[in-house]
């Protein structure tokens, strides 16, 4: 047998190393991708995910630097550890991509999503909706005699939970922005 002094299956100098490479566990990762805001750049990112069969749970994009024409794309994706590594490497080779950050592994981060909820109803249900909205720190951004439109900000789980409670109270429509996220370190991620 060979004397080679490297443990099989380990990988030198890779954060990836810390996890089991053959794991079949599906992980959820939030990636921040800084790109040149040029025509077609979003199509490139989306085309990469669909062409290679990766998942997109949510995706948000907007220009963050109007003079440098940079946009930040926040993608929430799922896959095994190996697939997530491959997604990051594939994103990194798109020419207008400047940075790819895995906010899930690169230290603590904060994630927020904004959602609008239209809840229609009268009487007790209407009162109860308002009471719950207060608990969730949801703002009323519009109202009619028959309905409220609430604005909720928080983690995706919080928004899911709010939706869960509102369904029986006359929730008729939801619009969600998808996740945006920043790392909590002092420097730019």
């Amino acid at each position, binding site marked *: 047998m*060979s*004397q*080679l*002094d*490297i*443990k*099989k*299956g*380990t*990988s*030198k*100098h*890779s954060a*990836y190393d810390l996890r089991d*490479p*053959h794991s079949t566990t599906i992980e959820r990762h939030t990636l921040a991708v800084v790109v040149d805001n040029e*025509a*077609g750049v979003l*199509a*490139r990112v989306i*085309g990469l995910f669909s*062409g290679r069969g990766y998942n997109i749970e949510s995706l948000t994009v907007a220009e963050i630097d109007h003079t440098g024409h940079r946009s930040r794309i926040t993608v929430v994706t799922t896959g095994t550890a*190996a697939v997530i*590594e*491959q997604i990051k*490497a*594939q994103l*990194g*080779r*798109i*020419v*207008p991509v*400047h940075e790819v950050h895995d906010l899930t592994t690169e230290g603590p981060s904060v994630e927020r999503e904004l959602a609008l909820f239209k809840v229609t109803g009268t009487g007790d249900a209407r009162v109860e909706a308002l009471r719950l909205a207060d608990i969730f720190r949801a703002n009323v951004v519009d109202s009619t005699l028959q309905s409220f439109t609430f604005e909720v900000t928080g983690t995706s789980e919080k928004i899911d939970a709010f939706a869960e409670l509102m369904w029986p109270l006359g929730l008729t429509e939801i619009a969600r922005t998808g996740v945006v996220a920043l790392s909590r370190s002092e420097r730019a991620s």
Partner: protein
Amino acid sequence: MTQEQMTGAKMVVEALKDQGVEVVFGYPGGAVLPIYDEIFQQNHIRHVLVRHEQGAVHAAEGYARSTGKPGVCLVTSGPGATNAVTGLTDALMDSIPIVVLTGQVPTFMIGNDAFQEADTVGITRPCTKHNWLVRETDKLSETIHQAFHVAVTGRPGPVLVDIPKDVQFADGGYTRPEDVKSHYAPQTKGDMAVIEALVDVIETAERPVIYSGGGVINSGDKASSLLRQLVDMTGFPITSTLMGLGAYPANGKSWLGMLGMHGLYEANLAMHDCDLMINVGARFDDRITGRVQDFSPRSIKAHIDIDPSSINKVIRVELPIIGDVAVVLEDLLTVWKARGAKTNAPAVRDWWAQIEEWRKVDCLKYTQKGKVIKPQHALVRLEELTKDHPKRYICTEVGQHQMWAAQYLNFNEPNRWMTSGGLGTMGYGFPSSIGVQMAHPDGLVINVAGEASWLMNMQEMGTAVQFNLPVKQFILNNERLGMVRQWQELLHGERYSQSWSEALPDFVKLAEAFGAKGIRIESPDDLDEGIKEMLAHDGPVIVDCLVEKHENCFPMIPSGEPHNSMILGENVDTSTAIKEGGGVLV
């Protein structure tokens, strides 16, 4: 900075000149007429008029692969651009640097389903490394310079610049290449700590093997010469993928031959049984790995690759080194030499003894008897009669003949072997040979072809004749879609569904109809004479070499099998050679 003002069309020619472009392969049409008008009025750049845009792209690929410089194409909007798609995909899969310029309808008509409008950047987004639609003449020259930079930097690949007709007519300021800044600069220097770790295992490995690939060719001449140094100094055995042939010379003493599905027995078994595998610029393609779970199960693997996405994509490696082959090998050799250039010589000697045992199987053995030419024999004779030519370039089409060419022809230099590996594009070889000959007017350029593939781009005979390019089309004519037929024999109960080449043209008359020379070789006795006649003719030649119709290409690792379950050559029972289940894979 004052910029020279000129029209967009003039800018295109100016930018190509500044990029050192000598040849453009193209085909005109309405949306590129202003550029063609500029081409007409200058003498720096030669334009080769192909007969189909797919041909232009493959010709540019041949030009690029045989020179290391980017190949350039110019085609019109709509159908011109869509015809280029196969070539772009081919170049993407094989990491070939080419720049394709397409005409587009005027900006104010985009989106209106205008005449010959196609969403070219949309269609080609997944089959280019990057592409651009240029909406302002002021940005045109800068974009073209960027395109060249992206095509050749990092992992090379095809790029496309789509130029609307009004942008070609309008005036704008010309940006010189040296004034263009690009953020695109992939890492070329490898991590020294991992390089040190690789040196550790090079010093102690008992059964090492170097597995080199197209990345060595992409990296350039220096990479090949450093690879040779590494192999010669360590005495480690080396095998290569189809794409890497020639980086290490086939006449070198550590050469095992090609590996993979149709690779040599000794190369595949060395890969399977090694304890250290050093992958230099190859991408663990499925033609190499077979069943991934059983791929070289006991080895520590190092992988040198410039593209981080190639690493751990298919096979997990213990020693990933992201960087350019030449840069990494230079560092590796420096460290290894500084530490005394040690290897575990006694163990490596035993390893070689084992390899020699495998070699005795003589997996490429064939017997030429009777009046029908064995395709292998035809190639052995071709090799014998051309190997001493100092500038021999071989192109191929796709199929059995391609694999036989890889097995029986020897490549001692990089950039002498042009083949479609990743996409496997039938119709690649002939136009590619035109591109190679344009780049090397005094080269001996031979396209080893199957009759079916060759027909896919046969219209390029017109190009070869018009430009008096003495390309030799060496067709191994088995009157079958041979590779398909072989799979049907092995996997589909010999039901030869649609794998016969019916109604073939008379290739000799076909050559003559184009004003070229045609030669038919029908018997083994005429082979040498026919080949010599082909070589002696100063002009394009088609050789119709009639070969055994049902010959199979062996060795073969059936899809989804490990390296040590290889089907060897003669006397196999092909009806039972492949197990159930092998058929789902390609």
